[in-house]
């Protein structure tokens, strides 16, 4: 086995060196336990719930199913850094305005996934496509209605 090396990651705009990262470390654990960024949640660890979603080079990724070594050199955005971009800031504001948060456990995943989608598709994307794409994220509290309203509010603003 090769000695676990140092890897470079840019997280929320800061370039960091992570030392002695074991080969089998998941990105989710690097963020939460190594870097202390506990906004990213672990809901299932099996790819089913979307609570662990982060942006890797602008694209949404399930951090529970990604080895940290496979994102080496990438630029990551977690929920802690999402409001630094105008689109992320608008998503957060829409969630607040519509009361789309109850316990909040799913919220970081939704906010990051929705920001990623709007970046990928442009704010003129169809309501149907965006809502279908959000079905990769689970919420146990809100019944989804306020999350859907927050999404619609965002899309309307850009019509």
């Amino acid at each position, binding site marked *: 086995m090769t000695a676990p090396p140092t890897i470079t990651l840019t997280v929320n705009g800061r370039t960091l060196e992570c030392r002695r990262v074991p080969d089998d470390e998941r990105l989710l654990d690097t963020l939460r336990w190594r870097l202390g960024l506990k906004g990213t949640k672990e809901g299932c660890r099996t790819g089913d719930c979307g609570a662990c979603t982060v942006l890797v080079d602008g*694209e949404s*990724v*399930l951090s529970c*199913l990604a*080895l940290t070594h496979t994102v080496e050199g990438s630029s990551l955005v977690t929920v802690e850094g999402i409001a630094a971009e105008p689109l992320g800031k608008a998503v957060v504001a829409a969630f607040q305005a519509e009361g789309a948060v109850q316990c909040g456990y799913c919220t970081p995943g939704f906010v990051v996934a929705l920001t*990623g989608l709007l970046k990928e598709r442009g704010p003129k994307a169809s309501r149907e496509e965006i809502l279908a794409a959000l*079905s990769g994220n689970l919420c146990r509290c809100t019944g989804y209605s306020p999350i859907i309203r927050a999404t619609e509010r965002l899309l309307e603003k850009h019509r």
Partner: protein
Amino acid sequence: MPFSLSTPKDPAEAFRLLVAGRPGETALLAGGTALLRDLDEGQNHATHLISLRKLPWNRHAWKGEALEIGSTEPLRTLENDPLVRARLPGLHQAIEAVGSVALRHRATLGGNLGRASPASDLIPVLLALEALVNLRSPRGQRVVDIEQFIISSRQTAREPDELIESVSIPRALPSAYVWQRVRPSNDISQVGVAVALGPPPGRWRVALGGVSPRPVRLPEAEEALVSRRPSEAEVELAAQAAARHAPFVTDRRATEGYRRRLVTTLVRRAVRSTAEHRARRAGPKGGR
């Protein structure tokens, strides 16, 4: 179980690593969306992973109407190519069915085929489109028909020293993939039906997923469809043939009986959607 990871920079290095380990000890890592879960759940006992992410296979290319898909191309990149949607609607619909957007940013076609799940959403459409699997090893290149490549549940014709390099889809065809499952994202289809039309004109191909032990073509349903714009009666015969002949079983996702009822609806939808796609592409003078 802890594991180690290597990231070869070219295929030659990947082959060296692949043959260096004992069988079962080594596994290939593409997007990791299936493998990491299998390792967690004890379905795979590899202690050394070989990451394919630096190999030059994360691309896809059109040669006329033929599409070659590199094995490590993320599914989301294919989905975002407007030509895939326009020329191979069945493939596009099948890709959209896999997991979620965040999953598809990493999941690959090579990984889907490497795992060969009987519930795969991509294998049925590749069967209907008569795709070819391009395998590479230090011994050279080998092309295997998708029909022969998939042997059984989680069993493929890949030799231990081979990698899936790419998948070729010989031609753009009117096609469709429709599925049923409990949850739209991140769930496994109870039944998936893929349909493709031509060549020659009027020849239909029907393939099913959610069957046991592997996705299959269904000649009985194909033979019931004899025209490019099949009549209600033809579609009904095909739907009933699928219900009668498909190798469905009962598992935790659905009973055999439910699957037999479900498949009739899905076959009707898939055939209609394909015929409509053909009519749109052919234009007003499309003929019968």
